[in-house]
């Protein structure tokens, strides 16, 4: 019975939901809620990136570019043009998807390090444009972004809300919203992975030539997943902009791109739950290390290096393998 449950497709989603909704029991101030909200939004971005990196086996060192485009599209449209949040998010995501498709077709022909170089370049170009178009983006100083609104209803970290008789402050409300968004993001990703498209993608990862030989249109599937992951990034960038209330070009920058890809690799490429763990760990680590003050950077680098050297498959897959071996041993001993 337990085993059957473990193999269910929805297992991960249910576990994640339980964790996400049990977490407020351990959070007791707005700062914790804000950190958790950031984690959820970033985790959803990384779940999208993982489709490209973990399943299709393509590298992107410029994904923050798409995240930043979404954030700035929302910022500009809602503050300067009076758009509502949802249309801004959706139109932004579609626009970014189109950009990703145009850029993706030629770039995805490249392999390995050339692909990482090209994606890095795309990310850089986007960040430079956001940095320099001062009239539109406010330049390096950044720009304020209004609160998230749906049909006149406003979700602000500073508001207070009433949900089914429960009094919620703005941080708590944002957390619940972000948790729901993450669940939807995971659900969509898992559906994609289990679809024929997902199988095609995995065949590209295994061997692109073999995939082509059996008739998989590899170029099409690679662009498709590139576009999907860019849309994830753009939509989450929009939410991130609303949540933070202020954005700078750093959201599209190289450091952010590296952070995203590191979350995927550290957590475990190809494992949706793994990359969420990666996002949580890499968001938490600086908080924990902040106590070490000037040692912070050194320790961060050392932890990153050591984890990747000793767990090249990533945190969650390594843990799962260790637990799996244990359980097998136990089962063997009993029989």
């Amino acid at each position, binding site marked *: 019975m337990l085993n059957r449950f473990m193999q269910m497709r929805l297992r991960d989603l249910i576990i994640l939901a339980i964790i996400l909704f049990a977490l407020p029991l351990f959070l007791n101030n707005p700062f914790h809620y804000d950190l958790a909200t950031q984690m959820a939004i970033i985790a959803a971005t990384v779940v999208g990136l993982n489709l490209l990196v973990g399943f299709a086996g393509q590298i992107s060192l410029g994904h923050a570019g798409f995240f930043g485009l979404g954030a700035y599209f929302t910022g500009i449209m809602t503050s300067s043009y009076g758009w509502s949040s949802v249309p801004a998010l959706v139109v932004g995501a579609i626009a970014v998807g189109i950009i990703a498709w145009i850029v993706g077709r030629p770039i995805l022909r*490249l392999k390995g390090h*050339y692909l990482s170089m090209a994606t890095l370049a795309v990310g850089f170009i986007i960040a430079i444009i956001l940095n320099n178009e001062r009239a539109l983006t406010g330049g390096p100083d950044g720009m304020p972004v209004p609160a998230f609104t749906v049909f006149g209803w406003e979700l602000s970290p500073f508001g207070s809300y009433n949900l089914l008789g429960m009094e919620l402050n703005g941080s708590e409300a944002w957390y619940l919203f972000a948790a729901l968004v993450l669940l939807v993001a995971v659900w969509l990703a898992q559906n994609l992975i289990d679809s024929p498209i997902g199988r095609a993608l995995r065949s590209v990862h295994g061997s692109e030539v*073999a995939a082509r030989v059996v008739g998989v249109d590899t170029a099409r599937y690679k662009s498709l997943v590139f576009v999907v992951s860019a849309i994830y990034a753009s939509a989450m960038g929009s939410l991130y902009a609303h949540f933070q209330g202020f954005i700078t070009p750093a959201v599209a920058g190289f450091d952010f791109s590296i952070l995203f*890809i590191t979350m995927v*690799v550290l957590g475990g490429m190809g494992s949706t739950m793994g990359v969420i763990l990666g996002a949580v760990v890499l968001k938490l680590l600086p908080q924990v290390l902040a106590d070490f003050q000037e040692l912070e950077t050194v320790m961060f680098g050392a932890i990153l290096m050591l984890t990747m050297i000793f767990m090249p498959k990533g945190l969650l897959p390594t843990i799962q393998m260790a637990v799996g071996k244990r359980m097998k041993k136990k089962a063997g001993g009993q029989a």
Partner: protein
Amino acid sequence: MFAEFLQYLFTGITIGATYALIALGFTLIYNASHVINFAQGEFLMIGGMATVSLTAMGVPMVLAIILAVLLAGVLGILLQRFAIAPAKQADVVTLIIITIGASIFIRGLAQLVWGKEYHVMQNFSSDEPIRIFGAVLNSQSLWVLGIGAILVVGLVLFFTRTLIGKAILATSMNKEAARLVGIRTQLVLMLAFLVSAVLGSVAGVVVAPITFTSYDIGIMLGLKGFVAAAIGGLGSGIGAVVGGLLLGVVEAMAAGYISSDYKDAVAFSMILVVLFFMPRGLFGAKVVERV
């Protein structure tokens, strides 16, 4: 008009020579181990920063430079031995993350030892600029070009005339076969990182009087070196030199004639255009993928 052009050209060639040295470092390590070393820029930083701090302690310039280069070399060997070698079965992306971790680690150490300030380094010779057809040439530029040229010639001789250089080449061509003929490939890989670190740190020292130096200078310089290496074609020595010079000149021209805000965007657009038409860079070898 012409003076202006010449001025941009001088600037471009000087910075381009630095990019070329960084790109050569990338190429060396890439050839030997198929790793893109994102910590390459940190060797430059170590070269510049260690020289500055040693001379501040009263060590004569030449000795300070030698010590700084040695320090970077040791770091290169340690990087290979303790970070790259243990993870040789890992994915390409995993190796990238490892070298990024290493670069953050080294940068953190530098920040700890040398602080976050910018440091100024003296020109090697006179501060008097040289005037040619109305353009001004910093005397340090001549040092950059001269030392760059010596290093490139030295590398060519090293790879064609010495047994050790040939051993590195053999390992990069076919590791198994190299091992069969008695080459100690692990040693060779360490050597490749050593040479690469030496190249990087020398570049860092000669360019420091022009660009200044600080603990985080390696990030952007390292990336530019990667761009140069990719333009030229990863693994190609000529490609690295041509790619570096081309990148430097295009960047300087873009900064001069278009907008200095967008000079980096021009550099990154150039790599996209090159890769669009030549997916393996200008001089990259055609490789038939084996299935």
